[in-house]
């Protein structure tokens, strides 16, 4: 029996091959068959979760909430380094110098990443902007979000910090950051579904020692981390409590 692995589709496109390499390493380390399925978007990923087609996942904090509280997943580790943050950007020539300059009717370019969009909405609240008085334009990728801004087809764009820094320097030079989130406490986490709970120690051992080899370090670096850190159940419950204050 093969286990199904997926990754929340918020990572930069150039990391697709790195996740396949990681999956091969994971299978060899644990001697179990694991199939990596990278979904095109959050809707497809949610459908796979609902259909019980996900056994292990590297999930954004919002998906982690659903998986732990409603699907019985167990969070075991997270990549070290900076927490998940996002930016609201505009074109360099746009008249808005801060979010307080934005007016009702503001056009927002974003993907359908629920994590980034929820935090982006919160960062617009001080300007009295909400879903009721703004126009949301959903795009497939963050590159398309940037293009909308550069063409003047959107006023602001929502992006994860990692995706913003992943844009070419040529594109970034034409954009300006209006605000960067500084939430400090939410992270992607690696979770195991019920069928893999009995293998938790094996997964933990493989992940937590991954940085000890040159090859492991290279793979981690390609995924934007330097090592995995164990997470305690209460740390994840705390993160989920925080997420619940942001989503209702």
């Amino acid at each position, binding site marked *: 029996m093969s286990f199904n692995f997926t990754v929340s589709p918020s990572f930069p496109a150039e990391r697709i091959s790195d996740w396949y390499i990681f999956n091969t390493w994971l299978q060899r380390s644990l001697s179990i068959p694991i199939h990596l399925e990278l979904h095109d978007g959050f809707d497809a990923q949610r459908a796979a979760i609902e259909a019980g087609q996900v056994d292990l996942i590297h999930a954004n904090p919002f998906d982690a909430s659903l998986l732990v509280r409603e699907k019985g997943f167990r969070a075991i580790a997270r990549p070290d380094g900076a927490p998940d943050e996002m930016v609201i950007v505009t074109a360099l020539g746009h008249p808005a110098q*801060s*979010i307080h300059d934005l007016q009702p009717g503001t056009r927002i370019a974003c993907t359908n990443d629920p994590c980034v969009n929820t935090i982006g909405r*919160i*960062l617009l*609240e*001080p*300007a*009295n902007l909400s879903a009721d008085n703004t126009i949301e334009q959903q795009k497939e990728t963050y590159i398309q979000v940037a293009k909308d801004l550069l063409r003047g087809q959107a006023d602001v764009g929502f992006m994860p910090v990692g995706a913003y820094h992943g844009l070419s320097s040529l594109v970034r030079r034409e954009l300006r950051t209006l*605000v*960067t*989130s*500084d*939430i*400090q*406490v939410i992270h992607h986490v690696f979770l195991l579904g019920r069928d893999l709970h009995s293998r938790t120690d094996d997964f933990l051992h493989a992940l937590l020692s991954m940085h000890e080899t040159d090859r492991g370090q290279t793979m981690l670096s390609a995924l934007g981390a330097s090592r995995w850190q164990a997470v305690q159940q209460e740390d994840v*419950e*705390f993160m989920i*409590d*925080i997420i*619940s*204050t*942001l989503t*209702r």
Partner: protein
Amino acid sequence: MLDMPPPTDAGDVTGHRLDHADGSRRQVFITHIETPYPQGRLIVSRTDTRGIITHCNQSFVDMSGYTRDELIGQPHCLLRHPDMPSAVFRELWETVQGGRQWHGYVKNLRKDGGHYWVFATIVPNIRDGRIVGYTSVRRQPSREKVAQAEANYREWNRS
């Protein structure tokens, strides 16, 4: 909870005596200086079931004016500003003790007698069906909402 020493270099200062729901009283001193909420940040803290602070993030430390060591172990009402009607906190406690989420606009008192406004959301931490504490997340409110809340609270305090 200790009384607040009068600020030494903050201009006009007025003293108030606060009566807390747990029966305790506290002398505080306030100024009219507002600290602007820093863009992009969330203030996060946790308390036990009695409202004693057990965790706070750096934004909480920065905005409150206290050190982390001064905050941990203190009741959350350390930040209570005398302009906040006690009915707000009564409703807050009734809501979260009933297992529900509470949110509202709150004027918080800083250690230096100044204040800052937040939009606060508080959730009970439910583990194995039991409330074991509360998590509070504060974010930046719009000035219009603050003005509205300020007018409402002034009215409540008069009545």
